[in-house]
């Protein structure tokens, strides 16, 4: 280094310090000359810090060795040295980038005072130092530099609450750093050195009570700075009150530095790792529970920050424990790095947005509902934070959970998943507030220029980029996997175009993409690809009926449909889960676009995430058992098979709106856009069926122990069918009726799959296709009706057969196909399922299946009666038939129903062929008749006979009508107790149609499930209240908790035994 040149120095990591300090010292002078020059110097220095970090990290990634920076020309441990390795480089680059972006956000405030500029600069340098230094005492100094700069920046705001919070912050952190200093000095006492590497090398010297207490002091001092529960009230108060510029830097930057400091010292932690993990887990879980009850935007972000750091701590401690057994260095980088970058950019971005929106309560965020761009940014940040694809958090959580699973740490897995779910709950609750559009006159326009949200946008891009890099490292970054997102992005670019014809490029994109993705599939996957992609396209054509712009609809739809395609081609559980989450996310967003979609979409998302996490847990158990991510190796999981099957099946069942978990379904289906409801019910719900079939194939059949969970599954299915039908009976809302009907029909399919027999599966798949057809028709018809009447309540319609004969005919045929009345398709499915049930000896389920299909008649008839028949409302006399573009897909589906009804073999042969590899074929054909152990089914003949017996009276009646000249009568020309009614409302029997049925067995469907889930919500709020009781706002209480935290650590780790 003696021959170093200036450029070498400037590009050297040391340059970060030189630049920051040099610029920092000179800023006051520049400021005296000209404020602008000071700002320029400040920005240049920050940019150079980013550049230097980036340059060196790039070098290291490309094979350069980690850079050791020695000072004073003396070798360590006798001098202080710094290190810039892969991990340090990554963190420094990320923090500096976030700081630079944050500076953009914070500049309007920062530039008011030159000292604020230099404090900010030196604060960032302090974080860099914390990350890079390898000297324990030097670490202390960097901590203090960071802390003091933070204090001062917090104090820049003048309001009493900020100052109070800042003072509490100082008191708490100064006690923490006192602990750290005490520990440091005693470690020096025992080891005679301050160099961290040297200390670790001479770890055996740290012994006895002094060593124990010293280590505890050092670790606790740092851990407290990470704001562990419950010693973190001081942090929350600052997050709540301080300006977002500094709060974001504390949340992401300072925490990052502290976190990495703990990471460096972990080798010393030894037995303390357990308690560190415990504290991390506790903090993650509890902050997320408390977050549920929080309305203040910035405090909410505070809870989220603390939770995320808790998760990072937990991950780090657990991995460190594992690291001592096996080498997991690379996974560690991936997990900790991924979680870290994810938190860094997402949380900083949210803080910045919070700074722009300036609404202290999350309820006030509806002011951005009209600012689509900001709403998008908000959504992306939350998505990233929750760990949904395609963001780094997703990959990191995946790796973490898989790693934990392979070491049988399932308790921690459940904690992580539960915490993540809670976090999603409060974040997306906030998002739903932000989406609620307010009336225009109330719209307080927020003064945000185009450039102000730019740092947030850049953070989003960086998140995407990091995610792709991580995916590449994990070797899953195939273009195919990312195709949905790419297509969505491409369509988003043209989303600004007005009008409905944006649908056409979407259809083309999905058709081409879907073909490319699914062309190589075979067997069950191939069948589902026809259903999901082909069917999806068919139903999506109908979207052309909407003339408005539908911002965001088409890109999201493309993502949804293509993610279904990637789901089908997934080979590994990771790809499967990635696509699954993507599908969940895109469908959630699509639901939010509906009329009052935000709230039901939230419960949809939460249940979907709950289901996704169950699936995740299932895959984790499988990975723990087999050590392989391949879906095809699920079957090798030995004893854990029952567990895996139960978890995965539970996940899919929730997604399909299974009994007890159905409460999200009616609201979500009802409030989504009408054509999208059709897609949701007819296509998207089949993804759950697909998942169920796949796991049943991989797990259920190949094992001998798969039977019991399958029986349970069969019961769940049939209970879902029964209660779905029962609840549909009492609905007044057209779409809610159809939603419950979907739930019920999917219940049969679940039972069919649960049968685990060839016939059972054929019936399930057949019913799947059938459900797609009739539910597609029904919901598209409903879309047409709602379009024309502007009404969803059925009793406010009536007599529409005269206006909408095609819609009526299609609906009627679909209903016959659904009901199972011969000769249409429904009969075949019911017949096969009944045979399979009898074959299996599941008589009770068979009886319930009978019962529920009888109940289904009630709501089906009601739909026809109250909407199309009876008395027509006066205001509906002029209505037109539904638009042709809605009718065309229905017509195609009707044709399919007819063909399959007459020649079911056309469908059953490929179904059977797809199932054959899993279960030996048991279908016996005698000519056109299918024969089972019990009975026979000759579809063409039935079709013929029914057609015949139907034609005969028809012809007879036609003849009569020719001879007698049938006369049409006026609307009210009926025999009505000797009076002639005048208004349709008095005459149309529609409201509370099955009142007597309600009186008889309505008690069965009182909303018990809803009450149950409400109790859960209440309970979690009560828990949150009792958990946050420590945060009483008193600085001394907070300080007491800091001290107590140390004492507790001491006692927990057996300090009394010293």
């Amino acid at each position: 280094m003696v021959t170093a040149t200036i450029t070498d120095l400037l590009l050297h990591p040391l340059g970060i310090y030189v630049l920051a300090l040099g610029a920092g010292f000179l800023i006051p002078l520049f400021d005296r000359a000209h404020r602008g020059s000071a700002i320029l110097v400040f920005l240049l220095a920050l940019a150079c810090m980013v550049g230097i970090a980036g340059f060196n990290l790039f070098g290291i990634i490309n094979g350069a060795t980690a850079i050791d920076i020695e000072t004073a020309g003396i070798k360590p441990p006798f001098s202080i040295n710094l290190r810039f390795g892969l991990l340090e480089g990554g963190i420094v680059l990320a923090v500096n980038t976030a700081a630079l972006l944050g500076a953009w956000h914070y500049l309007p405030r920062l530039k008011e005072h030159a000292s604020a500029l230099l404090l900010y600069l030196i604060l960032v340098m302090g974080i860099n130092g914390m990350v890079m230094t390898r000297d324990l005492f030097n670490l202390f100094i960097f901590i203090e530099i960071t802390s003091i700069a933070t204090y001062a920046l917090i104090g820049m705001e003048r309001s009493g609450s900020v100052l109070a919070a800042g003072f509490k912050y100082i008191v708490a952190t100064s006690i923490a750093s006192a602990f750290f200093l005490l520990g440091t000095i005693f470690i020096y006492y025992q080891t005679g050195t301050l160099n961290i590497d040297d200390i670790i090398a001479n770890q055996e010297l740290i012994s006895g009570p002094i060593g124990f207490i010293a280590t505890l002091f050092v670790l606790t001092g740092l851990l407290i700075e990470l704001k562990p529960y419950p010693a973190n009230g001081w942090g929350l108060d600052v997050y709540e009150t301080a300006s977002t510029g500094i709060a974001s830097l504390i949340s992401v930057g300072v925490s990052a530095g502290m976190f990495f400091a703990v990471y460096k010292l972990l080798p010393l932690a030894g037995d303390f790792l357990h308690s560190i993990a415990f504290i991390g887990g506790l903090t993650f879980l509890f902050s997320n529970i408390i977050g549920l009850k929080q309305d203040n935007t910035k405090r909410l972000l505070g809870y989220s920050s603390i939770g995320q750091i808790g998760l990072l701590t937990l991950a780090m401690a657990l991995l460190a424990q594992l690291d001592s057994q096996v080498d997991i260095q690379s996974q560690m980088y991936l997990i900790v790095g991924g979680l870290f970058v994810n938190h860094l950019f997402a949380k900083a971005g949210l803080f910045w947005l919070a700074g722009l929106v300036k609404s202290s309560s999350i309820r006030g965020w509806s002011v951005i509902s009209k600012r689509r761009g900001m709403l998008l940014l908000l959504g992306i940040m939350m998505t990233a934070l929750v760990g949904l694809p395609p963001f780094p958090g997703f990959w990191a959580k995946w790796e973490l959970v898989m790693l934990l699973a392979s070491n049988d740490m399932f308790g921690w897995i459940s904690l992580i998943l539960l915490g993540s779910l809670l976090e999603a709950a409060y974040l997306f609750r906030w998002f739903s507030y932000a989406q609620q559009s307010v009336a225009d006159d109330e719209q307080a326009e927020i003064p945000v220029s185009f450039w102000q949200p730019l740092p947030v946008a850049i953070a989003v891009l960086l998140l995407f980029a990091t995610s792709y890099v991580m995916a590449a490292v994990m070797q899953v970054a195939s273009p195919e996997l990312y195709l949905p997102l790419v297509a969505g992005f491409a369509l988003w670019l043209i989303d600004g175009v007005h009008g409905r014809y944006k649908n056409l490029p979407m259809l083309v994109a999905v058709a081409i993409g879907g073909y490319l993705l699914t062309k190589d599939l075979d067997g069950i996957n191939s069948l589902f690809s026809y259903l999901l992609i082909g069917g999806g396209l068919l139903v999506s054509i109908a979207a052309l009926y909407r003339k408005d712009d539908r911002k965001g609809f088409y890109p999201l739809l493309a993502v949804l449909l293509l993610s279904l395609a990637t789901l089908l081609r997934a080979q590994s559980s990771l790809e499967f889960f990635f696509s699954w989450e993507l599908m969940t996310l895109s469908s959630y967003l699509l639901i939010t676009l509906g009329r009052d979609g935000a709230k039901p979409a939230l419960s949809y998302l939460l249940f979907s995430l709950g289901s996704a996490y169950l699936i995740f847990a299932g895959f984790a158990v499988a990975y723990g058992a087999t050590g392989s991510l391949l879906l095809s190796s699920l079957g090798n999981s030995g004893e854990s098979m029952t567990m895996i099957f139960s978890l995965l099946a539970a996940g899919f069942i929730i997604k399909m709106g299974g009994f007890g978990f159905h409460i999200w379904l009616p609201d979500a289906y009802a409030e989504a856009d009408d054509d999208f409801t059709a897609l949701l019910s007819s296509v998207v719900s089949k993804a759950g069926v697909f998942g169920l079939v796949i796991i049943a194939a991989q797990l259920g059949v190949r094992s001998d122990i798969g039977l019991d969970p399958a029986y349970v599954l069969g019961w769940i299915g049939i209970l879902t069918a029964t209660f779905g039908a029962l609840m549909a009976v009492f609905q007044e809302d057209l779409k809610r009726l159809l939603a419950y009907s979907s739930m019920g029909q999917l219940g049969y399919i679940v039972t069919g799959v649960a049968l685990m027999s060839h016939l059972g599966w054929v019936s399930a798949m057949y019913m799947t296709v059938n459900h797609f057809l009739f539910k597609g028709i029904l919901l598209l018809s409903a879309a047409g009706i709602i379009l024309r009447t502007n009404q969803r309540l059925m009793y406010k319609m009536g007599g529409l057969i005269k206006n909408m004969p095609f819609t009526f005919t299609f609906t009627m045929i679909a209903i016959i196909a659904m009901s199972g009345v011969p000769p249409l398709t429904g009969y075949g499915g019911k017949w096969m399922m009944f045979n399979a049930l009898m074959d299996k000896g599941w008589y009770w389920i068979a009886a319930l299946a009978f019962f529920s299909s009888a109940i289904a008649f009630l709501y089906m008839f009601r739909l026809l009666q109250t909407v199309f028949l009876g008395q027509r409302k006066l205001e509906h006399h002029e209505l037109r038939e539904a638009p042709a573009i809605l009718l065309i897909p229905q017509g195609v589906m009707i044709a399919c129903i007819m063909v399959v009804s007459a020649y079911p073999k056309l469908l059953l042969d490929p179904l059977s062929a797809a199932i054959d590899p899993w279960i030996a074929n048991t279908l016996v054909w005698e000519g056109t008749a299918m024969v089972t152990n019990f009975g026979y089914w000759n579809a063409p003949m039935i079709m013929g006979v029914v057609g015949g017996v139907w034609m005969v009276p028809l012809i007879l009646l036609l003849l009569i009508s020719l001879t007698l000249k049938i006369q049409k009568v006026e609307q009210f020309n009926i025999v009505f107790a000797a009076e002639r009614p005048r208004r349709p409302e008095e005459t149309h029997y529609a409201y509370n149609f099955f009142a007597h049925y309600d009186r008889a067995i309505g008690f069965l469907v009182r909303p018990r499930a809803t009450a149950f889930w409400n109790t859960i919500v209440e309970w979690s709020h009560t828990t949150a209240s009792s958990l946050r009781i420590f945060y009483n706002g008193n600085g001394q209480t907070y300080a007491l908790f800091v001290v107590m935290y140390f004492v507790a650590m001491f006692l927990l780790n057996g300090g009394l035994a010293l």
Partner: protein
Amino acid sequence: MIKRIFIFAMLALMAMIFFNLVANYTENTTLSKLGHYYADKGPQELGAPNLVTAVVVTYRGLDTLGEVTVLFISAAGVGLLLRRTRRNQDDDKGLEQGDRAEETAGVHKPASEIVETATELLLPMVVLFGVYVFMNGHLSPGGGFQGGAIIASGTMFLLLALPESHISRLMIAITESMSGFSYVVVGVLGVFLAGGFLDNRIMDLGTYGSLFSAGAIPLIYLFVGLKVGFELSAVLDRFRKEDTGPV
């Protein structure tokens, strides 16, 4: 009350922990590894008789740079916090009753002639002593911080004795900035001319034990002393009357 008991319980437990430390403490009879190296090699390597100075300025030079930074930012921070806000500034209306109360409290009683004269006599000597302490930091007990503190105590003295006296902000700012910046420059020179960042051997080590020896240590201590002295003075000054101007 419960909280009080709790606090005492916690403190009692802390005392117990501390007792553990004390009970197991034995006084060192030999130097630690680091101490041994510095005592053994220090004088030859760096040419500074005062080992603490050698450690402070060179071996742990980065600490010292950090320390200077801490002082710098706390001075800046105090300045930022105590800046005088303009009236009617939107961010905190009505929160400034304190200001007004202070203004109406009246002016200080002027100092007596004896105090004034003594101040004028003593102040240069205090400053000179401070300079002496930091310039001899590598030879005898003392150094930049100590010297700087002495200079600042002179300022304190001045402010106490003559509260109305004027201290040039500009001078403080320039000295502060330039000495800090020079320190960094000297540190960087170490990279080019000697073994590394903050290496004091960029200049000749000179005669062991003489004033201009031990390489750049006296130079560094000069900057540190000035910087510390002026920064502490600035802090004191800012507490005296809230700042209006730039720091």
